[in-house]
């Protein structure tokens, strides 16, 4: 039983973090039709910066228990790079997809060395801070409190995004722009500002996701390129452009990964790729995406 | 004479919505049949069934005696039917000659020649020039398609369909977007070209009733997914009932052959 719960919690925790990154990807794809290869780089940036922020905060006298809000704040603060990068992406909005992919690939290359410059080549960790939160007991099982908190936070963010998209005026305008940009523009929507906001939101989701993962995993220079593949698996399984898809895909990938790590480590990512390919073949729109040519 | 292309009791339904209901028509060699009708009457659906894009829910569609339900554009082209669209489709970066050559290559079965040279293929070049000349494009063989004026793009689009040496060609509103002054000129070129290219029958989808009246050997009118009328122009325009449905208030002018 404990093994089952461990896998479930581990899987759902990983899914929670993946969801944030995937949600960012889906938002940006939905509105700007760009697939951001640099989503993993934002994630890694959030991870590294999160570690530094917590270390600074503790050195400045903060009690270690407050590290979770610090991590979230660190992720949010990094959102400032969003508008700057969006300005760069503006040059390729109307161009062939190949150039869009290449531009984001260029960002991946650049971020690799930005991370290396600020944090060096060795993986970084937050040590055992996770223990500061202890574990909660649910019946016979023990769940690390931190994991539970992150899952809860992710669920809250998911609901917030959902409410935002469905109920607020900005959300409606966002969905309209995603459906039909020219029409939205003709109706007076400030598309430029919309694109900048959406991209920044997408960036923040990525950086917060990365920040939240560091108490349980090391930040390393492999993160950016490895995460991209998982994030893509999530959006493919869930369906490009769909928020519900991001949720569903994240759960599938997170739990599959947890199962694979526990029972057959060799198969870990392999199983995920097979599922991705199977889905692309059987139902290219994914679970919730729109049908494709 | 066995019809070149025919549908027998074709029905196409999307759930509860019936797009085509017991549509039967036959087109034989030497005919130019126009399909007319208000928007939503099922013209597009019928055309898609005739050109093998849509499988009918019921009924048969045959081309040269063979069932072509849902065979798709590639197979259709290979069997000898070509289709040109209302919206101009070109290969922007390819020249006029190259565009026409693509069709000729399909038609002569050379698609998998990996090592033969297009430039040195005299037969290909001759055929390309021949087709281009029919449409008055022989001076522009080396011009890129995207640089052509709109009218010539349209001609190129139709010319490339002709290059398939089709037995039947379906023209989907070929004069839409063309100025009134040029419409008749274009239609005449196309009909003449068809004769010279050995096309045996033309199917025309048109809204412009003047053109329909002048060039059709037969008019098929659709309404609500059913065939309302299937007659020669004289009988078609003589029937006020039909004309008011299809044409509206311009009955008077057309009935007098204006």
């Amino acid at each position, binding site marked *: 039983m404990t093994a089952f719960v461990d896998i479930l919690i581990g899987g759902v925790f990983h899914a929670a973090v993946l969801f944030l990154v995937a949600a960012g990807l889906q938002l940006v794809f939905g509105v700007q039709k760009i*697939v951001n290869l640099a989503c993993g780089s934002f994630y890694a940036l959030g991870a590294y910066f999160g570690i530094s922020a917590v270390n600074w905060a503790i050195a400045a006298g903060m009690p270690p228990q407050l590290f979770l809000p610090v991590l979230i704040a660190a992720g949010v603060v990094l959102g400032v790079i969003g508008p700057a990068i969006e300005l*760069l992406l503006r040059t390729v909005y109307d161009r062939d*997809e*190949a150039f869009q*992919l*290449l*531009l984001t690939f*260029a960002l*991946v*290359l*650049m971020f*690799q*060395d930005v991370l*290396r*410059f600020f944090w060096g080549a060795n993986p970084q960790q937050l040590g055992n801070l996770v223990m500061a939160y202890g574990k909660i007991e649910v019946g016979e099982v023990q769940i690390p409190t931190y994991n539970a908190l992150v899952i809860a936070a992710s669920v809250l963010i998911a609901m917030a995004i959902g409410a935002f998209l469905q109920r607020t005026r900005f959300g409606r305008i966002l969905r309209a722009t995603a459906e039909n940009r020219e029409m939205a523009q003709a109706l007076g929507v400030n598309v430029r500002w919309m694109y900048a906001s959406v991209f920044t939101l997408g960036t923040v989701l990525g950086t917060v996701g990365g920040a939240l993962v560091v108490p349980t995993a090391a930040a390393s220079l492999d993160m950016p*390129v490895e995460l991209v*593949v998982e994030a*893509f698996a999530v959006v*493919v399984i869930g369906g490009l452009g769909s928020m519900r898809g991001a949720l569903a895909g994240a759960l599938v990938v997170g739990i599959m990964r947890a199962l694979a790590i526990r029972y057959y480590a060799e198969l870990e*990512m*392999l199983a995920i*790729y*097979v599922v991705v390919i199977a889905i*692309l073949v059987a139902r*290219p729109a994914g679970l919730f995406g729109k049908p*494709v*040519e | 004479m066995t019809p070149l292309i025919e549908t027998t009791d074709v029905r196409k339904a999307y759930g509860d919505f019936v797009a085509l209901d017991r549509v039967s028509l036959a087109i034989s060699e030497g005919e130019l049949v126009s399909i007319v009708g208000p928007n939503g009457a099922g013209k597009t659906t019928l055309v898609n069934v005739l050109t093998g894009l849509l499988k009918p829910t019921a009924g048969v569609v045959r081309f040269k005696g063979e069932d072509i339900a849902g065979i798709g554009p*590639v197979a259709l082209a*290979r069997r000898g039917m*070509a*289709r040109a*669209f209302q919206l101009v*489709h*070109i*290969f*922007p*970066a*390819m020249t006029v000659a*190259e*565009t026409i050559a*693509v*069709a000729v*290559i*399909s*038609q002569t079965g050379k*698609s998998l*020649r*990996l*090592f*033969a*040279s*297009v*430039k040195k*293929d005299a037969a*290909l070049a001759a055929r390309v020039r021949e087709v281009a000349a029919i449409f008055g494009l022989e001076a522009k063989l080396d011009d890129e398609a995207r640089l052509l004026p709109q009218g010539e793009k349209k001609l190129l*689009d139709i010319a*490339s*369909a002709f*290059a*398939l040496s089709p037995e039947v060609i379906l023209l989907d509103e070929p004069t839409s977007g063309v100025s009134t002054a040029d419409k008749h000129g274009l239609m005449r070129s196309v009909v003449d070209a068809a004769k010279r290219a050995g096309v045996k029958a033309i199917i025309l989808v048109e809204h412009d009733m003047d053109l329909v009246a002048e060039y059709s050997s037969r008019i098929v009118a659709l309404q609500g997914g059913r065939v309302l009328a299937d007659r020669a122009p004289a009988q078609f325009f003589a029937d006020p009932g039909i004309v008011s449905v299809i044409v509206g208030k311009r009955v008077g002018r057309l009935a007098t052959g204006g």
Partner: protein
Amino acid sequence: MMRLALALAAIVALAALPRLISAYYITLVLPAFAYGIALLGFNLLFGYTGLLSFGHALFVAVGAYGAAVLSSKLGVKSFELVLLLSGLAAVLAAVPVALLSVRYVRIFFGILTLAFGMLFHSVLFKFYDLTGGDTGIRVLRPSLLGMDFEKLDKTSFLVGPFYYYCLALLVALAIVMWRVVRSPFGLQLVAIRENPRKAEYLGVRVRFLRFVAFLISAFYCAVGGVILAINTGQADPELAYWTHSGELVFMTVLGGFASFFGPLVGAFTFIFLKSELMGMTQYWRFVLGVILVLIVVLFPRGLVGLVQDVASRASRLVPRAPK
């Protein structure tokens, strides 16, 4: 004619290179040959057919591992046999990938090929017993045209007979590709790129031709992989990683994907650029990233496109002689 003259000049220059520059630089030219061949194939799919694959490094890796397995585990010494068998293996591997991928276009094609590439990487990485895991497999020196060069040390072999063989291979495969892109098949590929729907209506078997182009590109990539592997003496899983596929695209666009010679120019430029940058700074990836940004934003037709633009502007400046 101009292009033929330039090409011949380049071949002569390359043939003379071993006498002119140091062995160190020659060992860089070999990867340039390898990537040049790989990119000729890649660009058939990208530049000519309009399909951007983010997983073609998979076939480079098949070539490399083919060479490794054939030479170290199966004792095959003949370079010709290694090339042929590895190429064939790549084509076989490409069949399922292509069958599944050519149904989709644009971003879905890119993601699907990326997934296949990473699937292969995963297999190479995880199945330690078969593939040597993350260390990979050694690649032994082959015999060229039946001749063993055992007396030569590694470097002398690479910069001597192997160099000339690979140059000849590059020229031969380039001629073959030249004919392919100028064939009826090649013309229909361009039609598919320009307007797949219209191409269908003109009787072009879009999916089938894309499939064939994919297989050809896989073969070329594998040949490149074989040369790379013999040069380094090792086949390792990172060859299949998606960022390596990204580099293939980078090189192609750097040289110019809209031109036949663009990818070749791109391969040579990238290899030398990367090597020089690595010597100058540890942040060479950043510089490469900036260069890619500049290409995408300012010079999308790559170096060849740039030269063509400059040349056409220059020719307009030169006053023509009065007739």
